[in-house]
């Protein structure tokens, strides 16, 4: 599995995709850093990560995931992967972790904002760390949605559109009925930014991701039979 993680991560930065994703996330970060910290003279970074999770991921997740399986299928490299002795579960998880690598790079860079704030005032690093932990979990959830989308098509654009549609719709659907509130991953990212690791939120994000990862594995396995 390590081989796949390494290759995926490397591929992101051999193509513009990795840079674009990091760039977009940091741009969103900077905008909200200005709005929530600079403008209001606040040292509280909690809303910064919340907004990046809310707006940044809707753009970043589809870009990060659209090529995952769609491109491999289109170019045929899928054949190399699926005829290797590595199981489909490991392939899917490997790709997921590879994409998370890009998110982690962004988070590491985002320590810069904390450095700027702590230069002016003494502030606790704990909410920043829990925000980041939560951010990794919520990214996993968003990426697994995109991964499923990428596994069902060989067209990268369609994959991206499905992912954006899902992430956007889930934000509004809860206004129609509260039944849909669990579909919206941002609802599981309320307490992390304030420094609390809530079990409900962790369990919510993990189980959400689990469902989509399992579905992706199912789709890939199913394709062996019906391909």
């Amino acid at each position, binding site marked *: 599995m390590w081989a*796949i993680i*390494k290759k995926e991560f490397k591929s992101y930065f051999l193509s513009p995709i990795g840079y674009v994703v990091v760039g977009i996330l940091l741009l969103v970060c900077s905008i909200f850093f200005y709005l929530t910290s600079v403008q209001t003279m606040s040292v509280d970074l909690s809303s910064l990560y919340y907004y990046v999770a809310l707006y940044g991921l809707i753009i970043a997740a589809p870009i990060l995931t659209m090529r995952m399986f769609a491109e491999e299928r289109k170019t045929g490299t899928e054949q190399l992967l699926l*005829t290797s*002795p*590595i199981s489909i579960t490991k392939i899917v998880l490997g790709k997921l972790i590879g994409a998370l690598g890009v998110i982690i790079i962004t988070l590491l860079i985002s320590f810069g904002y904390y450095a700027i704030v702590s230069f002016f005032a003494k502030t606790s690093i704990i909410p920043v760390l829990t925000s980041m932990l939560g951010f990794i979990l919520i990214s996993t959830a968003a990426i697994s949605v995109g991964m499923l989308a990428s596994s069902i098509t060989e067209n990268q654009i369609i994959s991206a559109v499905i992912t954006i549609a899902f992430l956007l719709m889930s934000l509004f659907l809860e206004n129609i009925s509260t039944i849909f509130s669990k579909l919206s991953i941002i609802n599981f990212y309320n307490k992390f930014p304030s420094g609390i690791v809530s079990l409900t939120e962790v369990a919510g994000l993990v189980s959400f991701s689990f469902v989509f990862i399992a579905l992706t594995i199912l789709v890939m396995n199913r394709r062996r039979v019906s*391909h």
Partner: protein
Amino acid sequence: MIEVKNVTKKYGNFTAVNNISFTVKDGEVVGLLGPNGAGKSTTMNMITGFIEQSEGTIEINGYDTIKKTKKAKKQIGYMPENVPLYPELTVKEFVTYMAELKLVARAKRKENVQEVLKETGLEEVQNKIIKNLSRGYKQRVSMAGALVGNPEVLILDEPTVGLDPKQIIEIRNLIKNLGKKHTVIVSSHILSEISQVCERVIILNKGKIVAVDTPANLEEKTKEQNILYLTVEDPEEKMASIQSKIKDIKEISMVKDNEDGTKQYKVVSEAQKDVRKTLFEILPKEGITIFELKKAEASLEDAFIKLVETTEDKKEKQETKKKKEKVNKQEKEQKNKEKEENKNKGGKK
């Protein structure tokens, strides 16, 4: 050793591969031959475990491809059709990645990768990005990807498509060499290639095995007649009468009239009968001088086309028969109906 038993692959109502069985022994090079859409790639995809068969079993060195997927896949090096590669990686990176995917132990990996790069003649370009390589080199990279990890079984799907003649010869020699250490299945629709590389040929058509034999036997089997090309100087124009003098000759026809006064004839006789000796005896007596006599080699191409066509003809005939029967039935039914209607009308009147 590869054992394919009663394997069928269906896509909905379409049967891509229909109940095929064959075995490939250790160290054998077998060619999979067939026109486009015959089921070559589907068969290979099933052997490599990329897709699952609808019915039947496939065993690679005793490991079932469905029940013992991981072990079965470990035995195989696969070079897919259309050489899929990761264009953003360098040659070395790609081959190393393939080695990792094939679970080559870390300690042996570097050495193994270098060995394979040397074997496929890629040492000099190993640090180039695949995207910038020519088609021939890409093909070799794909081959290197199949070879890495030293798999016992090699599955090569159309390995020489899109190469120039020199490269084809190189790849062909490579396959020949590989056959010494590996069990190899090569698919192709270039027949001369198969006959040079393979010890045995499996001919597929429309998902079925049409023939399994050595290339030489296939040529022999499908040969119906002997064809000779004869160039002679014939001042008295006696060639036309020769046919009546040698009864084994079925046909003599002139191919071309050369400017130097000689003429080339095509002489056809039955497959079992060789008329060359009699020609040499009789022609001089008739005052005809033989300049050249050569036997036309029945090629594997002929064999192939014949096998494929005969199976197609049978099918078509059957199908048209069925269709005709159906049409006849329908016509009869319609006539009956009309009759009944007329009767009814008559009754009402």
